[in-house]
């Protein structure tokens, strides 16, 4: 038996996470616009620019906003000076990503140097603020540890990214292939999976009414994945082939176990009603299983190059984007409701389910499925890329519209409540 501590600081104002969420879809649109300027998806500078619009501009942007809200809600410890930290993270992350994408696209060293400085500053602020909040938390939970390890992998990813971008800009001779592989594995395998897992431990049982993740899994998954990623780095750096195969095998076993356990928990949910978030999550977890299969097949040398690129594309668009869309459609209505409801029962606070109409979420699910199909088709039939580009652009518009509708409802209701 234990008595919980009172949370001594307030959760951040709703504007803090919403600014990040509102900015992120613009980078989906930018990714689509950049893709539209090229002749194929395999053009390297274009692919680098688009990848960073998606991973930094969308995925990390949403996660950075979500982190500001998750820390106080899940571990009872908000970031210090949340409003200032939000601006000092949001502005560098947006301008830095634009600069980086421009630097890749136009092979412009000045833009790449600027991106390193701006993003380095933004990440330093964000990572320091997260670490302070995690250190201050009274509770010691598996989510907290997963978030800590996610932040550590983000630190490694950002450092490697800055070294790489600086290297490209200055033309320094570096082992680009090893550094890039480490940057990708820490970014996607570490930061993205660990944060999604840490948040899923809370969001899946809370919003989808499933049983909790098994204790052995939620306490063991993040540390095991982190160790395996470090083993992978060692194997790659010192060319220890057997250790490389071992770490890759263990990594995919862990990722597959996360996907299967999540799907299994969702099949045991208490309320068996159709839910767009659940569909996004299922699509995400199925994509992760598909990536695991493709990555295993990619160990066979003749297939390596094509399947590795396809794996990364499906990981980002099929796994990460799906889960993040699903989380946004639960978190944003909840935040709007919570901030309107706080302080007691009031007449005029809308029902949480009416804040973003369910029908739009379902349209987004269908649009996302169609976009993924177009991306897969484009890997074997180039003209299909136009369908993928259109799908990505439409998703950005639909998501922006849904988010701005929620923000408008918040502002209008708050005004009515204040005037009442």
């Amino acid at each position, binding site marked *: 038996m234990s008595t919980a501590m009172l949370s001594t600081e307030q959760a951040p104002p709703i504007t803090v996470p919403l600014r990040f969420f509102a900015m992120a879809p613009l980078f989906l649109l930018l990714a689509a616009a950049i893709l539209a300027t090229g002749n194929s998806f395999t053009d390297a500078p274009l692919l680098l620019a688009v990848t960073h619009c998606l991973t930094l501009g969308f995925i990390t942007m949403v996660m950075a906003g979500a982190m500001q809200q998750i820390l106080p809600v899940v571990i009872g410890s908000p970031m210090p000076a949340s409003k200032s930290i939000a601006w000092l993270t949001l502005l560098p992350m947006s301008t830095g990503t634009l600069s980086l994408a421009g630097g890749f696209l136009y092979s412009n060293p000045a833009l790449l140097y600027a991106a390193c400085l701006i993003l380095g500053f933004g990440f330093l602020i964000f990572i320091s603020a997260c670490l302070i909040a995690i250190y201050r938390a009274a509770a010691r939970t598996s989510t907290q540890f997963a978030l800590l390890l996610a932040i550590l992998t983000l630190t490694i990813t950002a450092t490697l990214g800055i070294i790489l971008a600086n290297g490209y800009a200055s033309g320094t001779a570096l082992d680009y292939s090893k550094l890039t592989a480490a940057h990708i594995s820490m970014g996607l395998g570490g930061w993205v999976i660990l944060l999604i897992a840490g948040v899923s431990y809370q969001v899946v049982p809370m919003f989808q009414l499933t049983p909790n993740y098994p204790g052995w899994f939620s306490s063991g998954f993040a540390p095991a994945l982190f160790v395996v990623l470090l083993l992978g780095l060692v194997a790659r750096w010192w060319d220890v082939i057997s250790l490389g195969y071992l770490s890759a095998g263990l990594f995919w076993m862990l990722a597959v176990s996360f996907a299967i356990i999540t799907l299994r928990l969702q099949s045991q949910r208490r309320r068996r009603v159709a839910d767009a978030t659940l569909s996004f999550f299922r699509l995400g977890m199925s994509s992760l299983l598909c990536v695991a299969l493709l990555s295993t097949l990619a160990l066979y040398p003749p297939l390596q190059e094509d399947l590795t690129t396809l794996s990364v594309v499906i990981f980002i668009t099929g796994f990460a984007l799906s889960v993040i869309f699903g989380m946004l459609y639960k978190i944003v209505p*909840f935040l709007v409701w919570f901030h309107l409801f706080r302080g007691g029962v009031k007449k005029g606070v809308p029902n949480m389910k009416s804040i973003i109409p369910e029908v739009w979420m379902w349209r987004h699910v269908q649009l996302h499925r169609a976009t993924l199909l177009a991306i897969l088709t484009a890997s074997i039939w180039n003209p299909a890329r136009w369908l993928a580009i259109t799908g990505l652009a439409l998703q950005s518009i639909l998501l922006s519209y849904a988010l701005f509708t929620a923000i408008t409802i918040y502002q209008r209701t708050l005004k009515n409540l204040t005037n009442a």
Partner: protein
Amino acid sequence: MIALDVRGLPPPEPFEQIMLALETLIKDDVLRVLIHREPYPLYEMLRESGYRHQTTALPDGNFSIEIGRAS
């Protein structure tokens, strides 16, 4: 003491039910809530609305929260 069991309800129903129950509390009454997770955001709401609370983690993984008016 008034008892309220909100275990297994989806957000935001636990919050809504707790705040509605608090409206019915008479001066020295205490509301005892059984809930399946520790609701950190609720604590802030309670503080803002002039309530005190004490949370106990139960061995079965649930939480018991006793809420009364702050003196």
